[in-house]
Each structure stands twice: as structure tokens, then as C-alpha cells.
């Protein structure tokens, strides 16, 4: 019998989180490496999990709909599956050009 993958509801995986502009200022750091639960399915799940970690995240994500996300350098939506993304970015609406 083949062993089941080592993925359980209580497992974790390591991701790099990066923040920009006022999201970076409110979180208080430009990036961090965190072990996140593997049962976080979507971008919104991760945002809610971060908000439970501290007031700085609550301030950064106070208006959840305003904060944009990218998974491995590709724009994502709140309902996008995290998949196996290794670098997850959060930032305000873009103002380049």
C-alpha cells in the first residue's frame, strides 16, 4: 500500500510573504518567511489567518477588498487557490505609469 502524502489538516508549509507600499508600512516589515497551515485554501483564508496573528496585520488588512495579492509574481484574486505558491505578495492598488 502506498503511503499517503504527509499533508494533514494540521500540517504546515513554508512560504515567503512580501509586502509593498502602505501594506508594508502597516505590517512593519518588507518580507518574512512563515510556516502557514496547509489547510489555508485561498488568498482570503491566508489574509484571515494573518489578521489573527496581530494588530499590525489587522491594520494592513483592515479593508480586505482593497489589498491586492500576487502568487509567485502573478496577480491573484481573493478566492484564488494558494496552490503551492512559494512567494505570496500583498500590496495596495497599483499606481505606476
Amino acid at each position, binding site marked *: 500500500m502506498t503511503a499517503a502524502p504527509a499533508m494533514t489538516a494540521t500540517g504546515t508549509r513554508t512560504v515567503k510573504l*512580501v509586502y*509593498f*507600499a*502602505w501594506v508594508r508600512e502597516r505590517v512593519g516589515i518588507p518580507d518574512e518567511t512563515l510556516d502557514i497551515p496547509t489547510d489555508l485554501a485561498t488568498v482570503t483564508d491566508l489574509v484571515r489567518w494573518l489578521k489573527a496573528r496581530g494588530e499590525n496585520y489587522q491594520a494592513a488588512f483592515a479593508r480586505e477588498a482593497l489589498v491586492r495579492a*500576487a502568487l509567485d*509574481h*502573478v*496577480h491573484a484574486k481573493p478566492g484564488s487557490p494558494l496552490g503551492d505558491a512559494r512567494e505570496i*505578495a500583498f*500590496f*495596495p*492598488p*497599483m*499606481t*505606476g*505609469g
Partner: protein
Amino acid sequence: MSPLIRIQREDFSLQDEIDALSVGRSDIGAVVSFTGLCRDEAGTLAALELEHYPGMAEAEIGRVAEAAVARWPLLGLVAIHRYGLIRPGEQIVLVLTASAHRRAAFEAADFMMDYLKTRAPFWKREHRADGTLGGWVEAKGEDDDAAERWSR
């Protein structure tokens, strides 16, 4: 045709970029350029500070450029976006498009700028003329509307 994308702190020369794109070629009939400059906002702005997401900035502008190449018969496409501290009158962004006939070059340059403003990971912060640090520039709904019209 493979688009040229550059994300850089340094200034750029419009003429040098046009020359690099078109000199020695006889198939190009039209080159359209858009240059975005920093305004002084009626004298109240000392500089704009542009923060970007290294890696994703190149990737995302590259994806927008590939969409333009797929949509119009382009013979050349250049996008340069600066980051760092940029003062009023200085250049921020350049888009160059080349094609055999003008319509494709005009439309592709317009498309590039609309998507670059709403999708390229850059954020502007104001440094005011009175020496204080201003806020982060807020995204405009009209920019989203401008990008949206290409999918209608």
C-alpha cells in the same frame, strides 16, 4: 518579435530607444512613443518616490506586452519603467511601439499604458515641496475604466 522590457533607476533617452528599435530596418512604417513625466502638481510636489516589486514588475509588464503582440501586428515593442526618486519634469515611463502602419502602433501603445497603470506593480508616494512626506498616491477608478475598455 520579442518585447524589450526594462525596469531601472536611471533615466532613459527617447531618441536612443527609437534608434535602437528602428535604425537599419526598412519594414517599419510607424513608431509611436508615449513618455510619462512627473508633474509638480501646481508647485506642491518636490518628487515622486516609486516603489516596485522586483521580479514581478518585469514579469507583469512582459505579460501585458505579449498580449499586445498577440493582438496587433507589431514589429517592435519597448517598455521602460523607472523606480526610485523622480523629480518634476523627469521621465517615469516609456512605451514604444513599431508597426508597418500607424493604427497598430497607436492602439498598442495606448493599450500598453492602460494596462501598465493598472497591473504593473509600482506604487507612487509624494514628497511635498514644503519638505514633508506626503501620502501614497491613490489608484484612480478612471484608470481601471480605461483598461476595461480593451476587453469590451
